[in-house]
């Protein structure tokens, strides 16, 4: 399997803090990859660098073999990389349906975008289909701000799916979501993966990661510690060390 998304020896510093140092990651096409690591290990920073929200100091990001290092988030999205945020971001004052319609209209000239009504019949139908898929069809007309936390996560996912990205980067999709909805989310991700979508998931919920991902990468202090199948990663001594706070520089 060829890699769809690759980060190669990426480094990023915020002032004196080295958030990422020569960190590498490769997500094979058609897989569900997990990215785990203790708090502050650089998972979200890596996400931000990969999706154009931050510029890295060194290294290269490639999508389907094409270098996209330093591209804007708009361009990264156009290339087919969709992402969600750790703290769910929605357009709170727009309706659920309008939230989904935003991503349906990326390839068009300015004049067309002024002259045409938001959401053609086909786009509305597709948006409703996506809402149906995540189980929010009944709430299409409600303001997005009235949704529960779990529903917001599902809406965020649906509003990416409508643009049909090749790969989805999910930042802590289960944080604060009740177990019933987590199960639903897992099911949806599996279903999308069977349909050919690639996933990279940052998660703290080990049960979710180990049950879902084909391959897991562990980050520790901005470096890639291990990459491998979940069972192997789970029993790797270096990983246990990183999580339990051991190591040579330990004072205990």
């Amino acid at each position: 399997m060829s890699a769809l998304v690759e980060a190669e020896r990426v480094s990023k510093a915020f002032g004196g803090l080295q958030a990422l140092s020569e960190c590498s990651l490769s997500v094979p096409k058609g897989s569900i990859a997990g990215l785990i690591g203790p708090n502050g290990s650089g998972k979200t920073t890596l996400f931000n660098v990969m999706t154009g929200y931050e510029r890295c100091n060194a290294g290269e990001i490639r999508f389907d073999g094409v270098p996209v290092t330093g591209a804007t988030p708009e361009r990264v999205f156009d290339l087919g990389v969709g992402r969600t945020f750790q703290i769910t971001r929605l357009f709170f004052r727009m309706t659920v349906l309008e939230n989904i319609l935003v991503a349906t209209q990326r390839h068009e000239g300015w004049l067309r975008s002024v002259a045409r009504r938001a959401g053609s019949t086909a786009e509305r139908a597709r948006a409703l289909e996506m809402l149906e898929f995540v189980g929010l069809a009944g709430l299409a007309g409600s303001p997005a701000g009235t949704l529960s936390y779990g529903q917001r996560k599902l809406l965020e996912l649906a509003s990416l799916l409508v643009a049909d990205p090749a790969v989805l980067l999910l930042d802590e999709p289960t944080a604060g979501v009740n177990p019933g909805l987590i199960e639903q989310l897992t099911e949806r991700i599996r279903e999308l993966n069977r349909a050919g979508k690639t996933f990279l998931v940052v998660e703290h919920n080990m049960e979710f990661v180990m049950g879902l991902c084909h391959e897991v990468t562990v980050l520790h202090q901005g470096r890639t510690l291990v990459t491998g199948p979940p069972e192997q990663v789970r029993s790797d001594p270096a990983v246990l060390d990183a999580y339990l706070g051991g190591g040579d520089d330990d004072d205990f």
Partner: protein
Amino acid sequence: MTERLPARALLVAIAVAILGVFPLVFSNPTTTSIAVFTLIFMVAASAWNMFSGYSGYIALGHAVYFGVGAYALTLLANHLGFAAGWGIFALVPVAGIIAGLVAVPTGLIALRARRHTFVVITIAFMFIFQLAASNFAFTGGSSGLQPPTPLWSAVAYNDHFYYVSAIVLVATVALSWLVRRSRFGLQLFSIRDDEERARGLGVRVARVKLSAFVLSAVPIGMAGGIYAYFLGQIFPQFAFDPLFDLSIALMAFIGGLGTVAGPLLGALVLESLQQYFTVQSGASQVYLIIYGGLFLAVVLLLPRGVIPSIEELVARWRTRGSAEDRAREEEEAGESADVVKAAGAR
């Protein structure tokens, strides 16, 4: 939504009809003069809302485009040798386009910043233009400029300006409505709610913001042109007036930021009141106190503005109406069930 459409179309038709016959019914020049100023401010508030209300970027420097429109029309009329009369109105769209062109570089610079910094930069631009207008020779310095004065009869004088302003207003409101329901409008709203996420969903935020900024400057430039021609003289401190910025922002806030009708309602009430008080008492600054009071009242009682609050009230009233119907039906059904039960017991 669809069942409300005819009601809304009817309201628009009535409003346009009133707009058309107003000077025929109230032909007193004092009244029509107030009406012209009110229309000019309705155009300005509506156009300002098209950028600031829809995108959430509160610009407090749109007086730049009002002033540029005013100066552009006056300078063109004077230098191109336009005879006073209807011909000068042909320069109104030109004034709008020039204001739009000025909005490109100023918008590019201001929109590099967000939120508070953006507000401060727009204010700074307003003062830069005011200073420039009072210091350049071609703008007449602090003594300003005078466009040609048409020789229309005093009775019908204002009507010319009234109808030109009315046409510009109808076009501006149509544009505002078009933008609001368009894909472009949806992109603006997504920027208002969460700009970072909008970028992550492929919205070209820089392009969308700048084009909305320029689009809102054009009608304001046209309003400035009409204003200059109507007054017959322009000075830097009135063409580039910080109070103009506060006024149109207040009008939009009071009526309902981001709605089509809100800024129109706000401008209609505030500007006509202001003009009325100026005419009545001669104290032209009294309106500032009224503005302050009204603004406080709206912020405290109707924080989202008048129009959204009314819409919410209507929606609640409708649902309550249908809920009452349902409750009554259930009650009746329950009663009949009781009757049946009682009959069965007997």
